[in-house]
């Protein structure tokens, strides 16, 4: 059923009141005005200019193209859009029950809060699900189910970077890009293929089932024009919410560096498949962000808040990343997180784990040094002592190993391996 004022989705033409709302949003974000001749919901001043000229020309809305979604709107029952929503509603139920869903209520409330800060008008329409999948991705379904994979949470440095991705996905949602994409899938393949694609957003394990990865990427593969439009919305929403818009391009540059360092060049970071970060795109993001900053919208990073929320999950997410065994890439990731001021106790422990698992020439010594550095930081995980003890034991340094084991058990009295460690220490007593 359509919301008041909204007719059947396929019959909508030209400007609805949401189009004007988007335009108002543009004016608010850019602090300027948009040409009244522009028929496109350009979210940042200067993005769209009559005749397709300008720094980032965008096409006008073609006759019959979908208008923006209205707050609270659901599609009329007799439309194909309603069918797609129904499938996505069912898929959303699977997200709720998924074994890899991160159920931490604080993290869930935080992600929802960021969405509501970005777009208070649609706060009640968008529901966020964080899933433990160690790839860099977020997907937005036409019904408002926004899925964030944990690989993205591990990689972003601050709330502004997170907001850049969420804002971009919200841009796709507001402009109903996903609906268009899903229509294409339904029309060109079949409904079963579509259902499979929809379910793929729930993610893959660390083994990286390539077919599922490809499916998840395929569902969110938008046209270049749609990507540009979503980028514009993302930046505008970020700026309006008071986030630093320059963080959008900064995030892409971090992830490009990481991908370039990967051993397996065919390895997918997911969002690259559907959102190829071309030079043109990065330049446009820089230019638009620069324009917003020049207009007095420098914004904030909210780095400490983000890192505090993520802290209880950080080690688990890093372990997921290490299970992928893409050590070159993880090394770049850790270096990037060090620059972002991630807690050194956890970060050096992560570096130790990387070297221990890679286990090439010199890695054992590097691992031991990293664990020792981690332990020097007051925020180190207790597991750093355990890992240090195992390496010292391997080197025949029994007394130091014993001491490290005792430190581990002192810091984690309910350790899952307590009884075995005590047994090992008893056996080794001279």
């Amino acid at each position, binding site marked *: 059923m359509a919301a008041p004022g909204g007719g059947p989705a396929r019959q909508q033409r030209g400007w609805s009141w949401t189009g004007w709302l988007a335009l108002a949003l543009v004016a608010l974000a850019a602090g300027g005005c948009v040409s009244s001749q522009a028929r496109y919901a350009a979210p940042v001043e200067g993005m769209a200019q009559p005749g397709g000229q300008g720094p980032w020309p965008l096409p006008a809305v073609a006759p019959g193209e979908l208008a923006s979604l209205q707050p609270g709107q659901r599609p009329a029952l007799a439309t194909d859009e309603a069918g797609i929503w129904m499938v996505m509603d069912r898929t959303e139920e699977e997200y709720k029950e998924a*074994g890899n869903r991160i159920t931490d209520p604080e993290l869930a409330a935080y992600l929802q809060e960021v969405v509501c800060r970005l777009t208070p008008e649609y706060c009640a329409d968008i529901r966020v699900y964080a899933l433990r999948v160690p790839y860099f991705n977020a997907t937005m379904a036409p019904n408002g189910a926004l899925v964030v994979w944990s690989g993205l949470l591990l990689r972003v440095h601050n709330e502004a970077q997170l907001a850049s991705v969420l804002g971009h996905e919200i841009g796709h949602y507001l402009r109903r890009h996903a609906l268009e994409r899903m229509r294409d899938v339904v029309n060109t393949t079949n409904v079963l293929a579509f259902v499979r694609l929809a379910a793929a957003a729930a993610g893959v394990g660390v083994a990286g089932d390539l077919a599922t990865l490809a499916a998840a990427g395929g569902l969110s593969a938008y046209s270049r024009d749609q990507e540009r439009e979503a980028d514009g919305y993302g930046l505008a929403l970020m700026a309006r919410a008071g986030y630093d818009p320059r963080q959008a391009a900064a995030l892409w540059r971090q992830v490009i560096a990481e991908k370039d360092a990967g051993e397996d060049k065919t390895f997918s970071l997911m969002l690259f498949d559907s959102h190829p970060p071309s030079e043109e795109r990065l330049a446009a993001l820089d230019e638009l962000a620069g324009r917003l900053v020049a207009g007095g919208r420098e914004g904030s990073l909210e780095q400490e808040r983000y890192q505090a929320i993520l802290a209880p999950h950080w080690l688990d997410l890093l372990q997921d990343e290490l299970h992928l065994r893409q050590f070159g890439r993880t090394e770049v990731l850790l270096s990037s997180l060090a620059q972002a001021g991630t807690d050194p106790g956890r970060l050096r422990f992560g570096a130790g784990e990387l070297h221990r698992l890679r286990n090439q020439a010199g890695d054992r010594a590097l691992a031991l040094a990293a664990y020792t550095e981690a332990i020097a930081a007051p925020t180190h995980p207790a597991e750093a002592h355990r890992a240090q003890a195992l390496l010292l034991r391997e080197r025949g340094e029994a007394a130091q190993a014993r001491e490290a084991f005792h430190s581990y058990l002192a810091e984690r009295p309910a350790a899952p391996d307590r009884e075995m460690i005590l047994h090992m220490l008893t056996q080794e007593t001279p």
Partner: protein
Amino acid sequence: MKRAIVRLIPVLLLMMSGCSYFTLVESGTSQTVGEVFRVQPRLAWSMHEDHGVVFWTIDGPALHRLTFVPAVDSGEGLDLGFGPTRDLPAFADTMTPLEIMDLVEATLARSDCHGIEKSDLKPARFGTLEGFRFQMAFATRSGLRYRGLVAGAVQGRRLHLVLYAGSDLYHYERYLPEVTAIIDSMEIL
């Protein structure tokens, strides 16, 4: 038509011979598994073997299963029968039980298991060997929560392991006494 169906029967039989199948494991009799383990079940089980991985079940493998992983050489991964087996982390004969527990965790993580929790690692006899046991809990991606018991030992350069996993809701507890008795009856051949 009838003649066509009759002609199809040998073809179907040939095809069925390639299907996976279960064989009966009789209760109260000594059973040899993988030419390495000999155990004594008290209940009747169904056995399935797939690419060298042997597991037993009573109510169905999705609900509970007892997987036997005999004689894993140094440098090999553990195929626990839970999912993809490529790029599995490898066993090393220098590993302590602590590291073997981490190895099982990493293997399950690569098999699309989530929320893995480990507990109660302690020394325990495994046949005549000095071995270990620990407990686990994890969920599949679809959300089914399992509990597990792992027992094993290193013999020479080889790891012998048994993993029992059952649904947290019912099956794990239901068959745990039987599984414990089977592990206690273990002989290494």
